[in-house]
Structure formats: C-alpha cells, structure tokens
C-alpha cells in the first residue's frame, strides 16, 4: 500500500520575460514533488503586463505543468517564500496528496453582479466535490479587487480636490462600476454569498491587485487569464484545516461618528455633522496640506475600524473625492474607531498569529496579508520572512500580499477586511494526548 504522503513545494521566478518566467515558476514548483501536482496556485506581480502579457506567462506555465492540473491564482502586490521577499516576480505552490479531492471554479463580472459570480463559482466546485468522502473542507479564493476609475480630465487619481469633478465622479461611480467594471471590488458581498453557498467550508482568500496603484488586476484559471472575476480552489481532505487572523492594530481611543453615508456604505459624506474630509482632519488634528496623493502613506498606519459582535473590521481609506471619503468596503456601523499601527506592532502580529499553530503538525502554510501592510512595512517584510522561516522550518509556506483579505469559518465568523495577517495551515491529525487539547 502506498503511504498517502503530503507533498508541497513553492517555486518562483525573477525573470522579466513572461513566457520564461512562467516556465521557470512551474519548473521550480514541481521539481521537488515525487508525482504530478494535484493542484497549483499561481501568483505574479503586475509587471508581466509590459513584458509579454499574462496570457504568455500562463502559456509558459503550461509548457511545463502536466495537462489538466487544477490551477487558480492572480496578480498580487508582493510575496514571501522560503526563497525570499519580493515585490517583482512570480511564485507558485504545487501540492500532491492522495487523500484529497480538488475542484476549481470561476465566476465572472464580479463588480456588476457579485452574488451571481460567487454562486456560479461555487456551483462548479460543489458539482465536482459532491461525492467526496473527506470531512474537512477548504475554499481558497482570489477575487478581482477594486480598480480606481478614470475620471474625465483627471486620469486615475486617489485624491481629487475639485468639488465639481468629485461630485461628477461620485455620480458616475455607479455607471463606472456596473458598466465599465471599474470601482470597488464588492468582495464583502462575494464572501457573503460564498459562505451561504458553502457554509461547512473554511474560506481564505484575497483581492487580486497590481503594485498598489489599483489600476488593473488579473485572475488565472486553468489556461486562461481573466479580470473582474472570482477564481477558487475547493478542497476536501483528511488534513486539518485551521485559520487565524491578527492585525497589529490598536484602538487610539478616537471615535468617529458617521452622520451621512451612501454608495452601499462605502462613501462617507459627513463625520460628526461636518463634511467628511473636514471632520476626519479635525479628529486627526491634521492640516489640509496632508491631503495629496501621498496621504496613503499616513492612512495605511491609521485605518478606520468598526466592531461587529466581537470581530474587528479594519478598513483603509480608498479615495478622497472632494469632501467625501471612499473606503475599501461597506461600513456596517456608524461608529468608527480610529486604529493605529506601527512597524513593530505589524511584525508582532506575525508571532501572535503563528502562536495558534505551534502545537499542530503543520504540512503547509498559506498566508494572506494586506498590501497596505506591505506598503507600511517596506523592507521590514524581510523580518516577517525570518519569522515565518523560524516557525515553519522545513514546512513549505507561501505569503501573498493582496488588496483585501477574506476569511470564514464556522468557529471564527466571516470577514472581508484590510490591514490583516491571515494564516491557513493544513496539518495532520494528532492524538489528543500529544498536545493536551483538540485544536
């Protein structure tokens, strides 16, 4: 009898040419496996758009990858692997395991009809996995993230001070979102639908993004490249599936009361009865001079947050349109807490998170972290990598920086948030007397 050995391997490429990089990332990912992979997660930074294109990148992958291997992935802002920390390049995770059933799904036009996209994606996965006998379920998803709309005469900007242009931009945002598919990613609506469709799954994933400019993003599914889509990998296995979320954020004690909002809770018009931008600056004691395209270097360290039951939902500022503040996803409470982060607290969140997995016999780690954390930490992400290497040791791991993070489990609830650090591990079952508790 063949022992059901779990094998995982992380590959990468730093080549500039899309096709060459595709080949190399696939070769390096599968070379350490003793048999062909049962699934393949593929990620890339946005730069291949200019060096051959993403279809050519995928063609390179399929020059090497065995035909029919389930493949999903997308563009990300950066990644950490056992090999290093990068904001340019490609990486992939290949896994081979007998005791596992795998399916992939896709849904289109996520910005126009997120619920339909999620349902279509889940339908494909449920159909393929309906006869699986394994009890532990995982959904790994990548959703097209927000794209900053192009405003007439202004190009793609995150801060528009002109009142007239901003009013026009706000009015045009619905048209832009539904017809042009530019605007917010609506990931929280997609996650709601995924959790409704697959209530007994653990879900982890994130928003596909470019180099934090939020101009374009791409998703990979099988042999093809898409945008404005959700792609997902469904997994049923005998491995334990555990997730944990940490932030490295503290409440400053400053509370903000939203007195007027629209855009399904994503556009703040008034804070404490004042125009939103004025109210925000007053609360922060910041001068108006801070409001320029560099504002985000500050607000990444000071996201908004709201509590829903006992879960914190951090939310970064997305756009300043005149007097209005647009946030990344729907604000569900009118009382916001101003949160703060430091480089140290963001790095401490890594240790805090990994502590939960220390008694597991981990086989694989997949980490989804916020691109805002990457921008805030800069070269300090090399310290994050050291911590991951110290923890995982010989166990393969892959961290990708995304535009928004999704998690769901029956134990821990459901969240689409920003500024978070999320770890998923697959681990072997341990007898209870070995660890003293059942995790």
């Amino acid at each position, binding site marked *: 009898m063949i022992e059901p050995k779990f094998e995982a391997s992380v590959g990468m490429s*730093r080549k500039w040419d899309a096709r060459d990089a595709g080949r190399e990332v696939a070769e390096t990912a599968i070379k350490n496996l003793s048999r062909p992979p049962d699934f393949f997660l593929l990620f890339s930074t946005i*730069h291949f758009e200019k060096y051959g294109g993403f279809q050519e990148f995928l063609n390179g992958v399929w020059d090497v990858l065995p035909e029919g291997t389930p493949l999903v992935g997308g563009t990300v802002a950066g990644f950490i692997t056992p090999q290093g*920390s*990068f904001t340019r390049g490609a990486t992939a995770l290949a896994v081979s395991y007998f005791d596992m059933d795998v399916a992939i799904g896709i849904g289109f036009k996520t910005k126009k009809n997120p619920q339909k996209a999620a349902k279509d994606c889940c339908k494909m996965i449920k159909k393929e996995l309906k006869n699986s006998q394994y009890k532990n379920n995982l959904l790994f998803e990548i959703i097209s993230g927000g794209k900053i709309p192009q405003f007439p005469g202004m190009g793609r900007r995150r801060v528009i001070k002109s009142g007239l242009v901003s009013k026009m931009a706000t009015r045009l945002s619905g048209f832009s979102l539904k017809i042009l598919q530019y605007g917010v990613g609506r990931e929280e609506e997609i996650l709601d639908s995924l959790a409704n469709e697959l209530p007994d799954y653990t879900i982890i994933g994130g928003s596909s993004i470019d180099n934090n400019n939020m101009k374009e993003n791409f998703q990979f599914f099988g042999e093809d490249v898409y945008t404005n889509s959700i792609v997902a990998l469904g997994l049923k296995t005998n491995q334990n599936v555990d997730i944990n979320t940490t932030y490295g954020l503290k409440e400053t004690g400053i509370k903000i009361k939203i007195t007027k909002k629209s855009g399904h809770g994503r556009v703040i018009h008034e804070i404490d009865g004042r125009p939103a931008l004025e109210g925000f600056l007053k609360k922060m004691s910041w001068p108006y001079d801070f409001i320029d395209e560099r504002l985000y270097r500050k607000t990444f360290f000071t996201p908004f947050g709201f509590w829903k039951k006992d879960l914190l939902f951090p939310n970064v500022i997305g756009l300043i349109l005149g007097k209005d503040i647009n946030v990344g996803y729907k604000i569900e409470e009118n009382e916001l807490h101003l949160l703060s982060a430091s480089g140290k607290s963001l790095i401490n969140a890594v240790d805090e998170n990994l502590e939960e997995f220390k008694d597991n016999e981990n086989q694989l780690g997949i980490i989804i972290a916020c691109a805002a954390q*990457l921008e805030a930490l800069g*070269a300090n992400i090399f310290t994050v990598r050291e911590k991951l290497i110290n923890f995982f040791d010989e166990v393969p791991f892959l961290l990708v920086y995304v535009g928004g993070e999704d998690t769901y489990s029956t134990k821990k609830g459901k969240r689409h948030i920003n500024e978070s650090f999320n770890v998923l591990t697959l681990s072997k079952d341990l007898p209870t007397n070995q660890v003293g508790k059942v995790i």
Partner: protein
Amino acid sequence: MKDDPIALVLDDLLKLDDILACMVARRNMISVMPSGDGFKPEVKNMWDIIHRAMDDVFTVVGQYSGAGLGEMEFRLQDYEVLFYVFPDTESALVAIVSALANKGLLEVEMENARRDILKILDEQDKAKGIVVHA
C-alpha cells in the same frame, strides 16, 4: 560595463516603473551605473541639483556608516532619493524615485538589490583572494 554583474542588478531596478535612476555611488563618485542610459528622461533636468544634494548626504553616510547607518532618504521637489548603504563603507545603492511612488514596495526591491550587490562584491573579494594565494 555591459558585463558587470552589478550593472545587471541596476538594470533590473531601473526596469521598475517608479525608479527613475539608480547607481552605486559614494561622495563625488558614481561607481556603477546601469548598462543602458541610466536615467529616465523625466529626471535628467533635475540631475545637477539632485547630484549636489547627494554629495552632501554622502558626507553623512561616510561619517555614520561604521556606526550602523543603513538607509537615508531626502525629498527634493517631486522626487525622493533613497540611499541603501553598504555596511562599513562610504558607498550606497542610490535610487531616484517619484515622490508619489508606492515606496514600501520599492524598498523591498531596493533591499533585494543591495543584498545581491553585497553578494557579488563578496564573491569578487573571494575570487581576488584565490588569485592572491595561488
């Protein structure tokens, strides 16, 4: 210059959209430039003033490198100049970037480039050592 492995590292950096120029330099001296033009057009008009400011920063680099100075930066008009110092030397990897760039992402690739260059310098030193002892 074309076959210089350090120039190839700089070539990679310069391909990133927001890096407008990069070099390995010390006070009054640019040691290695990328193998092509070295500068993107938008920074050429500003080069003289940036170069003078850089030389002043290198005075500080020279004084504090031995004390563990790792990085320095300054902003001049619409540009930021990042210095990634090579430990215990008066030299640094320097990049001129757009002031609106997503600097955190660039810092990661600057650090990768610094590590790559240090590795190349280390290998070159070792190679010289082999010659000396042969």
